[in-house]
């Protein structure tokens, strides 16, 4: 695996965010503590990456941002995949009106640019992490639904699956034990690109002020706060953006590798 240059580049990209997360606890600062004595302090032995406009330690806030970004994107993709795979498998298995109904629903969600629908939902539901998750899941499940539907449709009439049906196995048992393992490869690839997309989506909503709210630190909110001070303290924008960029790039690289490895056409 290490022979692959893409994997090595991904490891390099991941190392910076990881390093930030590992180093942050060592300095002993809490990124939520406002300290007016150290407003916009330059990097020093105590605050390794300096402080923001409220005197909060940038290193610790970055570490929190990376953790939050990973936590949100992994949960959204997990929930979205669960919802999408259930929908898609039901539609593909039963066909007929179930299929028509579920796929029209998917089509409606897909007739909005993803980021716009997430913005609209998050804005209407109001601020907060739960609503942010809800908005991102509502947009993110469709890819999984379409993929698993097509795959299940092609498997449904294969002899050994029909044999299972004839043996009296119900849909849930067939779906979990037999269909899922056979359609896992493209779903896995979809999930890996999904993580990258959700990461940008979360940070984007937070950047617009309708995602993660103060005092919690998200990479998006940090970029938002930083742009106001860009003339004097450009590093406040550079750091969170660079970390987000590295994370997204690493995940895209791993997704590409996974796709080539599993031989999935996308």
């Amino acid at each position: 695996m290490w022979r692959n240059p893409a994997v090595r580049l991904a490891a390099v990209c991941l190392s910076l965010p990881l390093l930030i997360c590992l180093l942050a606890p060592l300095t002993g600062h809490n990124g939520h503590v406002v300290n007016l004595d150290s407003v916009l302090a330059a990097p020093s032995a105590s605050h390794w990456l300096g402080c923001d406009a409220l005197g909060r330690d940038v290193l610790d806030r970055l570490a929190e941002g990376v953790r939050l970004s990973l936590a949100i994107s992994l949960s959204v993709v997990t929930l979205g995949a669960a919802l999408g795979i259930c929908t898609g498998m039901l539609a593909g298995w039963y066909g007929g009106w179930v299929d028509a109904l579920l796929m029209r629903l998917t089509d409606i969600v897909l007739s909005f640019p993803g980021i716009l629908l997430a913005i609209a939902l998050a804005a209407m539901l109001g601020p907060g992490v739960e609503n942010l998750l809800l908005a991102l899941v509502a947009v993110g499940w469709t890819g999984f639904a379409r993929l698993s539907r097509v795959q299940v449709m092609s498997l449904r009439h294969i002899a050994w699956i029909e044999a299972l049906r004839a043996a009296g196995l119900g849909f849930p048992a067939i779906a979990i034990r037999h269909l899922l393992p056979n359609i896992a490869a493209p779903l896995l690839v979809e999930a890996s690109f999904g993580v990258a997309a959700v990461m940008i989506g979360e940070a984007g909503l937070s950047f617009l002020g309708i995602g993660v709210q103060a005092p919690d630190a998200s990479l998006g909110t940090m970029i938002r706060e930083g742009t106001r001070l860009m003339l004097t303290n450009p590093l406040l924008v550079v750091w969170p953006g660079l970390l987000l960029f590295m994370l997204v790039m690493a995940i895209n690289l791993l997704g590409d590798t996974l796709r080539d490895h599993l031989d999935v056409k996308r």
Partner: protein
Amino acid sequence: MYRLILARLLQTLPTLLGVVTLVFFLLHLVPGDPVDALLGETALAADREAMRQTLHLDQPLMVQYVHYIQGLLHGDWGKSIIDQHDVLARLTERAAATFRLAVVSLLLAVLMAVPLGYIAARRHGQTADTAAMVFSLLGVSIPNFWLGPMLIFLFSVTLGWLPVSGMEQPGAIILPAITLGTALAAILSRMARAAWLEAMTLDACRTARAYGISELRIWWRHAARLALLPVLTLFTLQLGAVLGGAVITETVFDWPGLGLLTIEAIQRRDYPMVQGCVLLIALCYVLANLLADVLALILDPRQRHVA
């Protein structure tokens, strides 16, 4: 072919209805009583009642829904609750700026993507190919709300070449167009490379080679026709997607288009305006998808058999 196009057109109708329905229900996602959210809890009872009536909130949901659709069809997209401005009029005012930004970004993306894809395919497996693919990877991974500020810092603040924001000064469109166009260029160049490589493996291209036709002519005449077809389809699909990206890009650069209007409306809790913005952008998106499918049917005879 015409039957296929007609069928595709008819398919769009339920989609449009679905879009309108979802946008209608957006207002009902607001937690609690929408009137409270609009007027605040301290508003006078009479004002609340008046608002309830103007928004038809005093009637059953079905009636509200029918009212909403009737209004849309008659060009009545509601009124801003902040300044009573007609939503549709405000949208058309702002659409021109977004249109300009989108056109320039798309042009920029194509002008970058096609040569990049060509060079990468032509020099397949060589340094130029790797470089083009690294650019494409960077392009899809860089968030536009970070790329924008970084470009402003470099070109406007440090070098002083271009304006920071707004639309009036000359050259103001350059940075937002690059910000919006980069991801697009990255996606398109990847597609161009893959499609060109695939086209070159076809018998037609091998035969052309055997006839002694010059390499340049094969690449640009014979292969390009096939290779640029999926690029064109993807490009048309992106016509709509670019409007989604414009929401963030316009916010970064204070570009007075639909995207910025959406965010302003969200910040002021001007829900009818938010609904209008989302609806208009989604309509453009649906139309772009329709256009992509119809173009593919017209330009690529093979598609007709698949469909």
